[in-house]
């Protein structure tokens, strides 16, 4: 099929690539409006404390300070999940973590705003904090969220499929282990930023924000600011990455809006890097106890999982994360029986939320490491074990998820060949090793975050008399290339060059709703919506040109920015001339809209729709490592990453997503740790102490694209932005075992930890 495509499947620069690479792109922090003020937020020094009173007078009197607000000015609540709206822009009554916003100032300069914040006097009554999962359960009288129904438990769920006890009893081998996944941040290059402008005359608020979810932000702004949603416009400038860290509303968006309304002047706030760590919403630190039973032929008879999630001070995406920690493990390997129990608790720390691979990166680490032990126990090659266990395509998982295209086995074959697996596994010299891991991820969630029957994604396409075509969509391109995908799809269907297509995706006044950049949904859903819209334009053009030429619509080819008569290819018109013709005949502009609505999917049980997705991507990584047994340093020498993205709309972009995902997971595996001290303070709130890998720490990554061609994806495409992160952590862990015989069950694999494990093993072996 790809042979027929002119644009799809070919390598193109991202449509926004040049602007970003040359510094022309304008990010929110770059924006300035006449008379603009700067805001700062005063943050709690305590992990848990009651606010007895706030005296803002010393701040208000400063020359150049225009407004000071506190929680009393913005008492409304918001939250990304409509059932768990438990945040206010500024604390109302109690601060729940070190860094919780307490008051905010708008002033002539950021420095003055900061100075004014320091002058605000808060009378604090420190409360005992809850700082760990155990604390949360063992201190029921200390309540992080007093309004919560179940003490400090956000959500607890147990789901069981099949006979787990029987499956374990029937197993030839049973392996079990306890794993811990550390708290990590997204570390987007661009810190969160927002700018608000209030048109008092019209009563219209405009908010610029680097959000991943302009539509949800739009709704929550209206709720908290008590404005009609119709009087709010959300604009999204260029975005310097998100990775889930900007996929819900944040305090600064409400604060600048309120301050703009109070002062009548535009107000901007840009987070410091420390505030990015405090706002967080990163990976839930998760303790996992897993047990797998398997037969000698590799059949997995049962899996039992217990997951403990430390959610931090607010709900955020936690309801979904709790389910995802279990629901996304049931493919591509078939499980004879499966049970998981996941508990998320509140603690007095920055809230955890969604990070690239939301909810399922942690259990994949545990599961894929234990699978390596299963393979060893039954004496089977770990790639072969996974190949045998694959459930194939167009089937249903044990928890009722519909699987369509499945390229997992092709991914296994690809990395096996590319890495020279058979010559290396258990054959490399001591200190060097190779490991494999496999994963699956969703292409969007089947249900929107707030219940409604409207399409998840809407696209409008306008063909101009100039021949230029504009695509309008509420999607957020946070770097994953969704603007490029939209342009490519429209250019493909209309036979245009990419440069003939303009994409407008940043303004709620202009664009139909798309729900946002999360759950790897954008290319799949917007892509389908775009096809639905642009095919109507193509049909109109074909019909009217055919009428003029006296041929059938199918005889009208759209190619090379022209319409061509198939019967006589010397007969052609420019695309612009074709638009004139069609518009004249239609007596209306050529504008069409399309929507994407998910089919009804999911298991018929409570929670059965969480994890239901119209398609799933599959990834396999092989990592090769060298371990210095004297120092504990692990060097990842090379990674082979095969990813089934259905169809690569643009292979360069897909490879970029695979490489970026591997890089990000590698950072979690080797270096990153969002730690807290005994008082709940961040230990690494800057990019010197919080270690993201540098280029020098990043191995060669060979990205291998596998195209299974999903029947429901746009041109067969599935996601590529999140799935490719999952396997790298267990692949490295399994490679370390191959190299030096230690099983690491806790990330990051810091050299001190590796050395301690090596010494523990030497002690038990009594050798040295």
């Amino acid at each position, binding site marked *: 099929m790809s042979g027929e495509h002119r644009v799809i499947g070919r390598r193109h620069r991202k449509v926004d690539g040049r602007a970003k690479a040359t510094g022309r792109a304008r990010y929110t922090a770059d924006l300035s409006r006449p008379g603009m003020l700067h805001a700062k937020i005063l943050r709690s*020094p305590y992990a848990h404390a009651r606010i007895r009173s706030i005296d803002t007078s010393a701040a208000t009197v400063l020359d150049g300070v225009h407004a000071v607000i506190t929680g009393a000015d913005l008492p409304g609540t918001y939250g990304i999940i409509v059932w768990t709206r438990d945040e206010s822009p500024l604390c109302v009554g109690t601060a729940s973590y070190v860094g919780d916003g307490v008051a905010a100032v708008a002033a002539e300069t950021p420095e003055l705003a*900061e100075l004014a914040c320091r002058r605000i006097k808060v009378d604090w009554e420190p409360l005992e904090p809850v700082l760990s999962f155990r604390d949360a359960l063992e201190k029921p009288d200390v309540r992080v969220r007093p309004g919560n129904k179940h003490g400090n438990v956000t959500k607890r769920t147990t789901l069981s499929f099949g006979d787990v006890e029987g499956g374990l009893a029937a197993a030839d081998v049973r392996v079990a282990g306890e794993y811990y996944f550390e708290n990590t941040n997204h570390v987007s290059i661009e810190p969160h930023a927002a700018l608000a402008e209030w048109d008092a005359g019209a009563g219209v608020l405009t908010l610029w924000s680097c959000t991943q979810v302009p539509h949800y932000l739009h709704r929550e702004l209206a709720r908290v600011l008590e404005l009609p949603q119709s009087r709010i416009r959300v604009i999204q400038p260029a975005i310097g990455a998100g990775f889930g860290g900007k996929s819900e509303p944040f305090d600064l968006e409400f604060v600048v809006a309120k301050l703009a309304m109070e002062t009548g002047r535009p107000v901007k706030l840009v987070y410091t890097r420390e505030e990015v760590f405090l706002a967080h919403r990163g990976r839930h630190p998760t303790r996992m106890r897993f047990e797998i039973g398997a037969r000698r032929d590799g059949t997995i008879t049962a899996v039992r999982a217990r997951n403990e999630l430390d959610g931090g001070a607010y709900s955020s995406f936690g309801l979904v994360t709790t389910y995802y920690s279990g629901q996304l493990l049931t493919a591509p390997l078939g499980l004879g029986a499966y049970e998981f129990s996941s508990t998320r608790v509140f603690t007095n720390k920055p809230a955890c939320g969604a990070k690239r691979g939301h909810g399922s990166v942690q259990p994949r680490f545990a599961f894929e490491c234990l699978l390596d032990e299963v393979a060893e126990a039954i004496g089977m090659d770990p790639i072969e074990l996974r190949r045998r266990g694959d459930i194939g395509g167009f089937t249903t998982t044990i928890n009722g998820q519909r699987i369509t295209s499945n390229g997992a086995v092709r991914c296994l074959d690809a990395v096996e060949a590319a890495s020279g697996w058979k010559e290396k596994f258990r054959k490399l010299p001591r200190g060097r090793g190779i490991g494999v891991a496999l994963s699956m991820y969703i292409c969007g969630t089947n249900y929107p975050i707030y219940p409604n029957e409207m399409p998840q994604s809407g696209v409008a396409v306008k063909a101009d008399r100039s021949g230029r075509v504009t695509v309008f969509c509420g999607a957020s391109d946070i770097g994953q290339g969704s603007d490029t995908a939209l342009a490519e799809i429209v250019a493909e269907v209309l036979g245009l060059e990419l440069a003939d297509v303009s994409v407008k995706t940043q303004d709620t006044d202009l664009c139909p709703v798309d729900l946002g950049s999360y759950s790897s949904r954008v290319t799949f859903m917007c892509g389908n919506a775009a096809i639905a819209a642009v095919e109507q334009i193509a049909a109109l053009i074909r019909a009217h040109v055919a009428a003029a030429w006296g041929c059938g619509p199918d005889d009208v080819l759209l190619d090379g920015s022209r319409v061509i008569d198939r019967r006589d290819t010397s007969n052609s018109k420019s695309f612009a001339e074709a638009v004139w013709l069609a518009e004249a005949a239609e007596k209306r502009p050529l504008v069409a809209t399309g929507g994407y609505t998910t089919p009804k999917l999911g298991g018929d049980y409570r929670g059965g729709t969480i994890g239901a997705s119209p398609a799933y991507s599959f990834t396999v990584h092989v990592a090769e490592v060298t371990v210095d047994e004297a*120092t504990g340093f692990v060097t990842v020498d090379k990674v082979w990453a095969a990813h089934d993205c259905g169809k690569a709309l643009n292979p360069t972009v897909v490879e970029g997503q695979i490489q970026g995902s591997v890089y990000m997971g590698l950072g979690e595996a080797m270096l990153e740790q969002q730690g807290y001290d005994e008082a709940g303070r961040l230990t690494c709130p800057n990019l010197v102490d919080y270690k993201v890998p540098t280029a020098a720490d990043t191995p060669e990554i060979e990205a291998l694209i596998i195209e299974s061609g999903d029947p429901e994806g746009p041109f067969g495409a599935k996601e590529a932005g999140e799935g490719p992160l999952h396997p790298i952590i267990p692949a490295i862990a399994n490679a370390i075992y191959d190299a030096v015989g230690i099983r690491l069950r806790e990330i990051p694999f810091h*050299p001190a930890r590796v050395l301690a494990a090596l010494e523990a093993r030497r002690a038990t072996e009594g050798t040295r």
Partner: protein
Amino acid sequence: MITGTLTRSFEYHRPGSVEEASSILVEGGGRAAVLAGGTDLLARVKRSLRSLDVVVDLGGLDELGRIEERAEGLFVGATARAWEIARHGTVAACFPALARAAGLVGGVQIRHMATLGGAVCSGLRCQLRDQSRFWRATIGPCLLDGGPACHARPGAGPSCAATAACDLPPALAALGAVLEIHGPAGRRELPVEAAYTGDGLRPLALDPGEIVLGARLPWSRRAPLVRSHYEKLRLRKAVDRPLVGVALALALEPGGAIAELRVAACGQGPAVQLVPGLEPFVGAELTTEVTEAIGRQVSRWFVPSPALRIDQAWRRAVAGLMVRRTAEALARAARRADTTASPPWELPKT
């Protein structure tokens, strides 16, 4: 984006002579700061770790930027940049530990700004102080800021646990470098290791108004048998400052016995120090047993600073290992009698 106190006004001086620089510093007292490459100063100012009232920019003093061969040694000026030092032919040929240390400073951009004088005089590293004003307010003032105790070592009385964490000073100390200093009382010289008091509250043995002009690395009487190497422990392969920095300079007799051995390290506390207790190894052959014993001596002596939140036992063990491996590599190179071979021991292995 520039935030914080950088946008405040301050006095800026770019003196044309060291005498003038010195007198401005004396006048400014505690309010005056020396600006060389700025990689340390500006970061501290941005975090409000120090105020910026009077800045004395050494950029106008050309003689401080020089690297030149003199009769008594190689002079490396205080404002010579790390990247210049790293690629300087004489430094690489005669003082490879210094060249390597300079090449391992920060990242490319930092190396193009950071200077030798800055490395010697830069502020100490403490993860419990090198934070934002907000963060420091949540924990309260540390000893250095007038508080009752050091946050990193609360039970240890009035001593600051912050650590020297620059690459060049250990290399300079191991190579026997001497600082040339200008002050109100004239010029004086000070061995690099003697420039550190060991007191984190006042880490440098410099008097008010004194300016480091540069370091002089003495030519070895034993050249070309003197070998040196610098090794750096850090979690990432770039950007990070050393958790442990060790430099080893070694001279061997023609028969292979150790004639001179100097090992210097940073990462313990406020001082860059020479490892003591190595005298017994002089005269010994550099056998595996001896290199292991040297490594053990370093591990015994090296007590990692608690101001860095990285496993202390591991840092201590690896410090000794780094020295042992470096000594082994230098011995191998010496046995090959290959005077140009540099024996870099990579950490982590690449």
